[in-house]
């Protein structure tokens, strides 16, 4: 419990740090919402500029702006988008499910593809399997996922003349169309992540398989399957779960670009567009959601350790 309390304090501090950072960073970008609204063709007089800044509360000193934002956020009010006048909280709530679906599908596909491949690679003596795993590893690690995304989109349309419906359909409206729409984005996100997981699983498995208790398990006549899955994999999982957790950050970064490329109206693209259009409340709100998610996933991973290895205790 004391451990949890300590972690909670650190979590709050981290989130607080992020809030200060994003608040300042977004204001350091050249240009502001007035420039964006005015566009580049028309002209705004000085008085008009001041009027717009006042409308958005940007005429206040920075500390005032910051504490007003934080204060409102603690009451669940994320502010209003400069650009559309919509409440940011509503915006995030409508976009979050898409990003969560994308991230979950990516992690699941990685877990269900990466781990079995890694296990197979660790026990297989076949050169082909090892080469395949090597290739996936190298490609997945070295190709940036936005590039993979573009390759996939071009490949699907020019080789197969196929692309899913372009207007996003939520899974509850039509699960089949939704899955088609998620297929390429998940693939592009999952490839890089799988590479890491395959390699991690393989090396972690190899290490465990060389230990005495595995030999004991084999000696007492357990099936290979039981040895691999119940004894070896369970013990090899800790580094894999750590990597998966860490990679969530990578995944959140990935969705930003992936959503933009595939035109998925999720949180990642909302963030990117917010940056382009200097929509401070939207950028700040979405970054906070990303930051909290990241911190929570890491906390979850740490707690998972105690489940995976009962010897681990947090004091």
């Amino acid at each position, binding site marked *: 419990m004391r451990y949890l309390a300590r972690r909670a304090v650190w979590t709050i501090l981290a989130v607080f740090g992020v809030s200060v950072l994003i608040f300042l960073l977004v204001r350091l970008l050249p240009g502001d919402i007035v420039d964006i609204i005015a566009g580049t*063709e*028309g002209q705004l007089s000085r008085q008009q500029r001041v009027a717009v800044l006042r409308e958005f509360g940007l005429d206040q000193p920075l500390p005032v702006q910051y504490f007003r934002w934080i204060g409102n956020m603690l009451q669940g009010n994320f502010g209003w988008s400069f*650009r559309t006048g919509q409440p940011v909280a509503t915006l995030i709530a409508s976009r979050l499910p898409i990003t969560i679906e994308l991230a979950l599908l990516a992690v699941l596909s990685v877990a269900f593809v990466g781990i079995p491949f890694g296990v197979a690679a660790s026990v297989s003596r076949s050169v082909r399997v090892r080469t395949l795993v090597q290739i996936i590893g190298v490609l997945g690690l070295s190709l940036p996922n936005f590039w993979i995304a573009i390759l996939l989109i071009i490949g699907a349309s*020019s080789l197969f003349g196929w692309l899913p419906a372009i207007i996003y359909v939520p899974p509850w409206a039509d699960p089949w169309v939704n899955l088609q729409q998620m297929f390429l984005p998940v693939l592009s996100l999952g490839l890089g992540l799988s590479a890491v997981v395959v390699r991690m699983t393989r090396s972690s498995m190899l290490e465990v398989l060389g230990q005495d208790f595995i030999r004991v398990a084999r000696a007492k006549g357990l099936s290979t399957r039981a040895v691999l899955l119940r004894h070896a994999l369970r013990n090899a999982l800790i580094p894999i779960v750590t990597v998966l957790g860490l990679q969530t950050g990578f995944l959140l970064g990935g969705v930003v670009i992936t959503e933009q490329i595939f035109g998925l109206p999720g949180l990642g693209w909302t963030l990117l567009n917010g940056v*382009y259009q200097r929509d401070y409340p939207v950028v700040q709100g979405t970054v906070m959601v990303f930051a909290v998610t990241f911190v929570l996933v890491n906390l979850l991973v740490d707690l998972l350790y105690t489940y995976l290895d009962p010897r681990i205790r947090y004091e």
Partner: protein
Amino acid sequence: MARSTSRSHHGIDRRTFLGGSLALGGGLAGLDLSRARLVSAQAAGTPKRGGTLVAAAEIDPIGLDPHNSSNFSSCQAYDHFYESLTTYDEKTNIQPCLATSWEITNGGKTYTFKLRPNVKFHNGQTMTADDVKYSIERVLDPKTASPWISWLKAIKEIKVIDPLTVQMNLDAPYPLLGSFAGIRASAIIPKGLAEQENLKIKGIGTGPFKLVEYVPQDRIVYARNPDYWDKSLPYLDGMVFKVLTEENARIAALRAGQIQYAFFSGQGAAQLEGAPGISVSKSPTAWVVVHYINKRNKPLSDARVRRALRMAVDTNEVIQKAAFGAAVPSGPVPTGYGDWYIDPKTLPYVKADVEGAKKLLAEAGYPNGGFKIEIKCSPQYPEFVATTLVIQESLKKLNVDVTVTQMEWGAFVADNKKSNDSCGKEGTDIYSSANTFRPDPDGYLYPYFHSKGEINKGGCDTPDPKLDGLLVEARQSSNHAERKRLYEEIQRLAMRDSLDWWWYAKYNIEAVSSKLQGYSQSFTGRRLFLKKAWLA
């Protein structure tokens, strides 16, 4: 109303409009207003009612308020549901729209617009003079913070004469007012709408389509307006514009048949060449890449020097390197603009003439070049930098040393404005930029080259009586043919003396599936004619 090549990488509209280069004036007053409305584009097949067009928007609009956003992306989105008093036909000539006719009296200081009767807003309300007054006054209200206010600020008073007659009184003659179509902040909305609705995401107009829904970063949905005043239009039941900023995604979606319309860059269009069932249309648009020259100081104060330097640069090389071939040579008025441009085949200095340039330089007293000039440009627009680098390289042949200074766009605009405001006393020799749409050819010439022009670099203290006279005559003339002749003469003079260096008008590239028929491009770059398109 042109677009920049690299728009897919930035959510912000990157349209240039240099400080102070507002098009003021223009002689549309004299257009023959009784001319019949042009019939729809001649296209194969007979129009068919029905169907929903799925199209890609290359950028997410920055708000839908027609009065206070100057972004082209916004205009592209609200053009379908808002209308102005006048509009453009396929040849970019002014045509009646919500006003059926107008009269100019009181020495050009009074405009009286007759409104089209029985026009319904999308909420069922009938449009009247009160709505016109309300809408234009909203633009003029400083609280609206409209970037377009300077285009309309000549209006002193708007009077409702009767429900279908509006009178606008100006403080000085301002011929541009007839071309409301070119002033984007002139949409007519129902009286009081702005106080009731969030116009950034909602809208009620009189246009051929109603706005059904705008989901930022995702899609804009339109439905056919069954009460549209032009009973035969539109043919489509509706349109969905999906925001797809990634050009490769647009290419893929078009190939796979998921969309039937999209906008492309030159490089993107090349990938679509030969794709079955897709046709790519290109036509010049209002984006003329130009180098503004400060004519105050030596040696650039000498017309022979300016001409010699221009002669040494090959226009087609510029087009290849800066626009990847997707452009056409242009004079001051963009190639393709109504009746006003100069046939590119007859443009001077398209092919480089280094020998001629050397001779001319020697005549001007620089037999071996040997001087230095500075050109400023911004990497925000790679094509401006590319054009400038071609110049730098070409002028080496004349032994003229060009310093290329790259600046952040905002700083560049400020520097150029300083040069304009001081009549060339401050700032550098040459600025690289582009001219976008002006509602009248006057906007490409008068402000730059009349000695009283607002953005004349260095020419304000040394008036050229002939040019000044022609510019004023063209402004005041009410005869179309006469104005055409005058603007040709003015442009020839400007190019002979190389008052600025004009390079090319960029292509507007749009690709449609063969299912979409009857669509024609507009020189304005706006998708004005989707209302006349249909799905086969």
